[in-house]
């Protein structure tokens, strides 16, 4: 007797040989085209389905509830109850084993262990559903610790110090609360306490702070959860909570810190950059940026928003560094640019430097050289590694007068070598960070005019989208890259083809936007891409970015995060990933047709 479905998988491994044979004789295989309905809500369920190949979505109205992949069994709930409450739709080309309901129910009633699987499965699903909702709503509060918050460092005064001393100290350390030592006791005094004492109680500013200090302080440990800080503040009606590590007071958390933590607090880092008095201050702020990324991501902030925040912070950082390292004469005659992904604003973690300088006219060589070295070195000291391709201001090729850049554009287009393509690509993605931004606008306009109407050149340029295959096969199974174990390369298979395809179209149409997302939006608005497809493409792009960011965060700092292991993803993520790769595949076909790449 030939085996129809795999009987070694749960729950079929609990069956007797005769029972298996009985079920197999009641089994058919059905093929579903993408989008075909397997079970409609409200419809009587005639079959128990096992996914042989492909994937099936479970939908509650419009909302996607779960996804079933190969070997998954569904829908035990409606099989028992008779009718489906949700609809089940093939997500892609799908083959399903379908076992007739009567046959399954007969075995359920005969074989208790088999039956138990069904009832367990149903109750487990119900409780999972409830849990997921809770997790999504309170996730960041439940998982973050007090140590993740911004904690005002502890500063102490004595209870015999005067109100005036306390006031000055608060101003000096830029904080609104101080710890007060009074023998064995420790208390807290706030700016509001001081004002009230003087204004309302008419105390002298020479009086000791002892009488206006609160000694009933509430404290928690850095290991406590953020939500307990919030609970404590509410319960004790306090705006501040002391943080105590063991028996040592280490700082104070204010309610505003908890709130800004929940809402994201990148403005704090921005403030530090703006207030920096020199390179050393900037270095400290640069370190905050990376910590900020992790914090924002943990709070569930979307990757494209994080990229926007990070690129904004990085640019402020570069602009300030430019101020500190470039001679005023140089600053007046130049434009500092960032290129590649930094220019597109798609950098989430700190990566290689990709920057350059466009000069309006030649400047004295020693002044320029000094800047080249000190700027690149400063960034390196902040933790931005030098660019392996040497695309940095240190390289005279990337820091020279506008006229020289423009002269080179013509040779890049006339002799389309891989290096020339790369130069065009990274320069077209450039964005001005400091100095005279009109220099970059002028350079880019020249670049766009150089390639305008050059169909053959543009086709050559676009052709790089075929540099790496889309890791997806028929029945949309994910193909993991060779030599990388079971890992998938998100950058090669997903991010790069989108970025480059979009860049090719944008260059052809002379768009001045730099971000891939903005470019897609414009291409959709101008009908170069169908608006609906533009939306899908943009979603796919954001999805890759967020997956990459997640794997960057979980990997050791500095890792590229381009590899992801499908086996480690949730089945939902795995399916979304396939979807995204599907869009990439479609997009590549569009680009191939558009630039007539079949001629290669």
């Amino acid at each position: 007797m030939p085996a129809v479905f795999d009987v070694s998988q749960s729950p079929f491994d609990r069956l007797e040989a005769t029972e298996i044979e009985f079920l197999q004789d009641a089994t058919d295989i059905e093929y579903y085209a993408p989008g075909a309905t397997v079970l409609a809500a409200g419809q009587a369920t005639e079959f128990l389905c096992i996914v042989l190949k492909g994937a099936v979505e479970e939908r509650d109205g419009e909302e996607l509830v779960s996804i079933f992949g190969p070997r998954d069994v569904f829908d035990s709930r409606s099989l028992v109850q008779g009718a489906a409450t949700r609809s089940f739709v093939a997500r892609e080309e799908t083959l399903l084993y379908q076992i007739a309901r009567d046959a399954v129910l007969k075995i359920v009633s005969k074989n208790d262990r088999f039956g138990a699987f069904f009832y367990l499965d149903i109750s487990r699903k119900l409780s999972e559903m409830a849990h997921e909702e809770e997790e999504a709503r309170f996730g960041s509060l439940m998982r973050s610790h007090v140590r993740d918050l911004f904690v005002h460092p502890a500063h102490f005064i004595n209870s015999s110090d005067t109100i005036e001393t306390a006031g000055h100290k608060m101003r000096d350390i830029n904080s609104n609360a101080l710890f007060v030592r009074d023998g064995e006791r420790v208390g807290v005094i706030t700016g509001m306490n001081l004002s009230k004492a003087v204004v309302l109680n008419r105390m002298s500013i020479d009086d000791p702070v002892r009488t206006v200090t609160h000694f009933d302080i509430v404290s928690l440990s850095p290991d406590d959860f953020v939500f307990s800080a919030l609970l404590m503040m509410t319960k004790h009606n306090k705006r501040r909570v002391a943080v105590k590590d063991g028996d040592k007071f280490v700082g104070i958390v204010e309610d505003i810190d908890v709130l800004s933590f929940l809402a994201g607090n990148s403005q704090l880092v921005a403030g530090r950059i703006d207030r920096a008095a020199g390179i050393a201050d900037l270095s400290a702020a640069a370190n905050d940026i990376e910590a900020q990324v992790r914090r924002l991501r943990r709070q569930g902030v979307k990757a494209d928003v994080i990229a926007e925040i990070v690129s904004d912070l990085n640019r402020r950082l570069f602009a300030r560094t430019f101020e500190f390292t470039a001679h005023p004469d140089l600053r007046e005659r130049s434009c500092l640019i960032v290129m590649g992904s930094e220019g597109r604003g798609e950098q989430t973690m700190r990566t290689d430097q990709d920057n350059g300088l466009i000069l309006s006219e030649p400047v004295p060589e020693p002044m320029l050289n000094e800047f080249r070295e000190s700027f690149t070195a400063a960034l390196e000291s902040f933790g931005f590694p030098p660019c392996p391709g040497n695309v940095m201001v240190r390289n005279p090729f990337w820091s020279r007068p506008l006229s020289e850049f423009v002269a080179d554009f013509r040779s890049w287009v006339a002799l389309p070598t891989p290096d020339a393509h790369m130069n065009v690509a990274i320069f077209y993605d450039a964005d001005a960070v400091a100095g005279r931004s009109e220099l970059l606008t002028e350079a880019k306009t020249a670049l766009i005019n150089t390639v305008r109407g050059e169909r053959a050149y543009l086709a050559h340029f676009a052709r790089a989208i075929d540099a790496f295959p889309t890791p997806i096969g028929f029945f949309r199974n994910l193909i993991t890259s060779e030599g990388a174990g079971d890992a998938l390369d998100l950058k090669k298979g997903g991010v790069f083809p989108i970025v480059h395809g979009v860049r090719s179209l944008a260059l052809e149409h002379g768009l001045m936007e730099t971000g891939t997302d903005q470019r897609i939006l414009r291409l959709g608005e101008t009908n170069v891409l169908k608006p609906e497809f533009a939306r899908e493409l943009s979603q796919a792009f954001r999805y890759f970015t967020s997956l990459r960011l997640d794997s960057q965060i979980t990997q050791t700092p500095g890792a590229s995060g381009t590899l992801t292991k499908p086996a480690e993803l949730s089945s939902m993520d795995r399916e979304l990933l396939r979807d995204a790769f599907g869009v990439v595949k479609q997009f590549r076909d569009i680009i191939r047709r558009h630039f007539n790449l079949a001629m290669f």
Partner: protein
Amino acid sequence: MIPRWAKRLFHQATIGDQSYRFMFEKGPPNEFVAVDCETTGLDVKKDEIITIAAVRIRGNRILTSERFVKLARPESDMAADAIKVHHLRQVDVESGQRLYNIWPEFLHFVGGRPLVGYFLEFDVAMIDRNVLRFIGIEMPNPLIEVSKLYYELKYGDAPPGTHCDLTFRAIMKDLGLPALAQHDAFNDALMTAMMFVALRDMKQRGARIERQRDRPRFDMAH
């Protein structure tokens, strides 16, 4: 070589057993039968069928619950080479039915439905030889070759000189189908049926199978 349609007409006129007239009638709409034989060898004239498996397809549904699988007892002994391929030894086929007992049931199972297969010409030639001997006709059914469907979807627009790989393995791989143990007649028929429903759907939707191309170089460091 006499064309199949001519033979069909001839056999329709000369069929000995009138009870098999139904073979010349059109099968139920949108139904097909995927078929596969395991044989003692590859010589259509001399070798014999050991197992024959068929599975009906109704629309997109592969009716595995109504499969036809028969082990036959060949008239001659099993060749060692064939045993290596399908792992059926002489003792295994001893219990099989005599071939002439199989055909009435097989023909009723198939009826006028089109036959679907991989390298179907061989299977049909094997079946024809037997059916001709017992009932006096050859299979009049329309034939659908899955490798041809596959070729159209993958190489239909290929430039001349493109290397075509039409092996069973290649098709399975491109379609991402789960490989069941091969050289089991039922498994082969079932895999062929899966290929058929998938390829037919792709054709209807105008989808194509991507060919491997030479890939240009691009430095992605930025």
